C-alpha cells in the first residue's frame, strides 16, 4: 500500500503511470467489448462511450456543485441550517457590496476593453508588412501566467516617494517604470495600487494586457475570412476606411466578437490571481473569487465561501447560455 502514499517524485510518477495504465486498460476493455458484440443495441454503445465522461462530470462537477449549494445555506462550520443568511450578508454588508460591485466592473470593463483593443489592432495590422511580428507582440502576454504578469505589473506600478526636505542623494530611488516616467516629467509619483477607485482600473489593465492578444487572434482570423467580393462591393459603393470598419468588418465578424466577449467575460469573473498577487484584495479592490477563497480557507467560514461561489456561478450562467445560443445561431446560418 506504500505505493498509494508515494512521497518521492519518482514514486509519484510511478503512481501516475500505473493510474494511467489502469485507466487505459479499463477503457480499452470497455470499447473492445462493445465492438465485439454483434449488433449491439444503440443504448449500449451510447452508454459505453458517454458513460465514463458522464461519470467524471457528475463526480467532479455536479456532485460538488450540489454540495456547495447546500453548504451555502449552512453556517461557518457547515453544521446548522441558517437559510439565506449568507446571501443576505453578501448583499447588505458594505464590504461585500463593494466586492460584488468590483466584480461587475471587472466583467464589464475588461471584455469590452480587451475586445476593442484586439479588434482595432487586428484591423490595423491586417495585411501590413510586419503583420506577423506585430501580432506576436500582442499575443505574447498570453503565454505569461497571471501571477507572473501580476508581479511584472506590480513592479511597473511600484511607488517610491519624493520626500520633502530630503537631500537628493538620500531620496529613495524610483524602481517603478510608470512613476519614474512621471518623475522625469516633473510630476509627483502616484500610489497606483492604493487610491480607489482607480486602483481597480490599474489591476484590470493587467487582465486586458493578457486578453487583448487572445481577442486579436480570433478576430484577425475572422477578418481574414471576410470574402474579398464583399469588400470589393463596398469599395465600389465608395465607402471610406472608417465606414468599411463599421458597416462591413464589424457586422461580418459579429459571431466571433460575441464569442470573444463572452469568453473573456467568463475568464474575468473568475479573476483571482491578479488581485491576490497585487493588492491581496485590500484598498477596496476585492473581487468575488478572491473573497470566496479568503472566506473558505482563511476565515474558515465555509457557508459564506460557498454562498459566494454560488453567486459567481449565478453570474456566469447567463453568459454561458448566451454564448451557446449564439454559437447555435451562427451554425444555422452556415
Amino acid at each position, binding site marked *: 500500500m506504500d505505493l498509494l502514499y*508515494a*512521497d*518521492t517524485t519518482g514514486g*509519484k510518477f510511478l*503512481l*501516475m503511470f500505473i*493510474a*494511467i495504465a489502469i*485507466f*487505459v486498460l479499463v*477503457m*480499452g476493455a470497455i*470499447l473492445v467489448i462493445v*465492438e465485439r458484440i454483434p449488433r449491439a443495441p444503440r443504448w449500449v454503445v451510447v452508454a459505453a462511450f458517454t458513460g*465514463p*465522461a458522464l461519470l*467524471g462530470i457528475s463526480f467532479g462537477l455536479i456532485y460538488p456543485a450540489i454540495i456547495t449549494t447546500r453548504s451555502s445555506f449552512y453556517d*461557518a*462550520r457547515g453544521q446548522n441550517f441558517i437559510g439565506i443568511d449568507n446571501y443576505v450578508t453578501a448583499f447588505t*454588508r*458594505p*464590504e461585500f457590496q463593494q466586492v460584488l460591485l468590483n466584480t461587475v466592473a471587472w466583467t464589464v470593463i475588461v471584455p469590452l476593453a480587451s475586445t476593442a483593443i484586439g479588434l482595432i489592432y487586428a484591423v490595423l495590422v491586417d495585411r501590413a508588412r510586419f503583420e506577423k511580428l506585430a501580432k506576436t507582440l500582442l499575443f505574447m502576454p498570453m503565454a505569461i501566467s497571471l501571477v507572473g504578469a501580476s508581479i511584472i505589473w506590480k513592479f511597473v506600478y511600484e*511607488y*517610491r*516617494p519624493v*520626500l*520633502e*526636505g*530630503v*537631500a537628493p542623494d*538620500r531620496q*529613495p530611488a524610483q524602481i517603478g517604470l510608470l512613476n519614474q516616467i512621471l518623475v522625469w516629467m516633473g510630476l509627483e509619483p502616484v*500610489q497606483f*495600487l*492604493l487610491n*480607489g477607485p482607480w486602483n481597480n482600473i490599474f489591476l484590470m489593465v493587467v487582465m486586458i494586457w493578457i486578453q487583448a492578444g487572445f481577442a486579436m487572434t480570433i478576430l484577425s482570423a475572422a477578418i481574414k475570412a471576410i470574402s474579398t467580393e464583399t469588400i470589393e462591393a463596398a469599395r465600389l459603393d465608395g465607402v471610406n476606411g472608417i465606414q468599411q470598419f463599421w458597416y462591413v468588418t464589424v457586422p461580418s465578424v459579429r459571431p466571433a466578437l460575441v464569442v470573444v466577449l463572452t469568453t473573456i467575460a467568463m475568464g474575468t469573473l473568475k479573476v483571482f490571481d491578479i488581485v*491576490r498577487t497585487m493588492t*491581496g*484584495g*485590500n*484598498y*477596496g479592490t476585492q473581487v468575488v473569487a478572491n473573497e470566496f477563497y*479568503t472566506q473558505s*480557507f*482563511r*476565515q*474558515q*467560514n465555509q457557508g459564506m465561501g460557498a454562498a459566494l461561489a454560488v453567486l459567481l456561478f449565478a453570474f456566469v450562467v447567463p453568459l454561458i447560455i448566451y454564448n451557446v445560443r449564439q454559437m447555435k445561431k451562427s451554425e444555422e446560418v452556415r
Partner: protein
Amino acid sequence: MTSIRRRSVATLATGMAVALTLAACGGGDSDNNNAEEPGGGDADCTAYEKYGDLSGTTVSVYTSIIAPEDQPHIDSYKPFEDCTGATINYEGSKEFEAQLLVKLQAGSAPDIAYIPQPGLLKTIVESYPDQIVEASAGTMANVEQYYAASWKEYGTVEDTFYAAPLGANVKSFVWYSPQMFNDAGYEIPQTWDELLALSDQIVADHGAEGVKPWCAGIGSGDATGWPATDWLEDVMLRTAGFESYDAWSKGELKFSDPEVQAALTEVGKILKNPDYVNGGLGDVSSIATTEFQDAGLPILETGLCYMHRQASFYAANWPEGTDVSPEGDVFAFYFPGVSEDARPILGGGEFVAAFSDRPEVAAFQEFLASPEWANAKAIATPNGGWVTANSGLDPNNLVSEIDKLSFQLLSDTSQEFGFDASDLMPAAVGQGAFWTEMTAWIAEDKADDAVLTAIDAAWPN
C-alpha cells in the same frame, strides 16, 4: 483499422487527462524525510530513557515553518531520534492553516501539528473533537514545570489542555540605531510619554531634513494589516491593562468600547501623525503599501527614520552582516509602558497539538516541551532568530543579543504576557476584519468609529 487506432489514441488521451488531474491533487508540499538509524551518535541519552525504545516507529510533523527555518527544527529532533530510534517525518507548508483543516476533514491528520494561533486550536477542538487528542501526562508535567501559567492557558480549550507551547516571539520591541541615538544624544524612553516626547524631539531636531521619528509598513500579501493589529494590541495592553485586554481578546469587550477606542486614538497619535511617519517611505498612506519586511530598513539605509516597532523576528530582515547588538548598527528597546513599572509583553508562539495517542507521538510531544528540546533547538540555530518561553533553556545557548533580550523578557514572570489577541480571536475577525479594517484605517483614512464598528459586525454570533 484507422477508426480503431484513432479511438485508442482518444482513449489514451482521456486517460492521461484524468490521471494527470489525479496526480495534481496528490502533489504539493515539501516533504522532508530524514530517516536515521537509531543509536547513531554517542550523545548522552539518559534524559531520553523514560521514552523507552521506539525503534521502527514514525511520527509525522506538519508545520507552517518552511525553508530555510525548517532545517534547525529537523536538526533539533536528532537527539530524540538517536536515543529512542524513532523517525520524525517533517513537512512544512506555506498553506498550513488551510491545509491542516483540509487534512482533518479528509481524516488524514498528521501525528503532530505546530499550530501558530490558539484561535485555530479552538476551531479544531470544536470542529474535530474526535481527531485531536489531549496532551500526554508527560507533556503537561513539562509545561507546568517550565512555562509561565498563562502559556498553559493558551494551549487549553474549555478546561482541557491540548497543546504545549513551542517557540515564542516578543512583539513589544522598537528597533533603532544605537549609533544614531548616541550621535543625537537621545536616551531610550522608559514610558509612553517619554516615547512621544522623544518623537517630538526628533521632529524638532531633524524634521527640516525630512527625517521622521517613525517608519512603519503593514503590507504582507493577503495578510496585509497584521502589523497594524499588533500596534493596537500592544498599546491596548498598556492603556487598558491585562484584564481588559484578556476580555477583549475573548470578545467580552467590544471593539467599540471606550477602552479600545482610547487605545486606537493613542496608536493614531503615532501612525496617523504626518509629522511622525513615514520616515524614508512617504506619507501616512504609504504605511499600507510598504511591505512589513522593508519598513524598518530606512533606519539603516538612509537614516531618514529613527524608530520602527516590530517583533523580535524582524532581526532576520536586516541585511546580511548587520551588527544587531546594543552597541551595533541596530538593536531594539522595549516598547515602553504607561509607567516605568508596568512592563507588559505582547508576543506570540506556536503550540504542539497531537492527533494520535500512539506512545511514540505522546513521547515526542513531551520531548518538544522539555528543556532538552529547547536547548537542542537553540544549538541547532547557529544564526539566532529563535527563542522560547521554556525556562529550562540555558540563555548561553542563544547566540544573538536580541534573542537573549527576548528570553530575558519572556522569562520575567512578574510581568503580564499578552498573547497576540488577533491570534486568539475567531478567524473571521483575527484573520479577517481586524486586518482589513486596520488597513482601511490607514490606507483610506477611515474614521476610528467606522473601523471599530465594522470589526464588531464581523464577529460571529
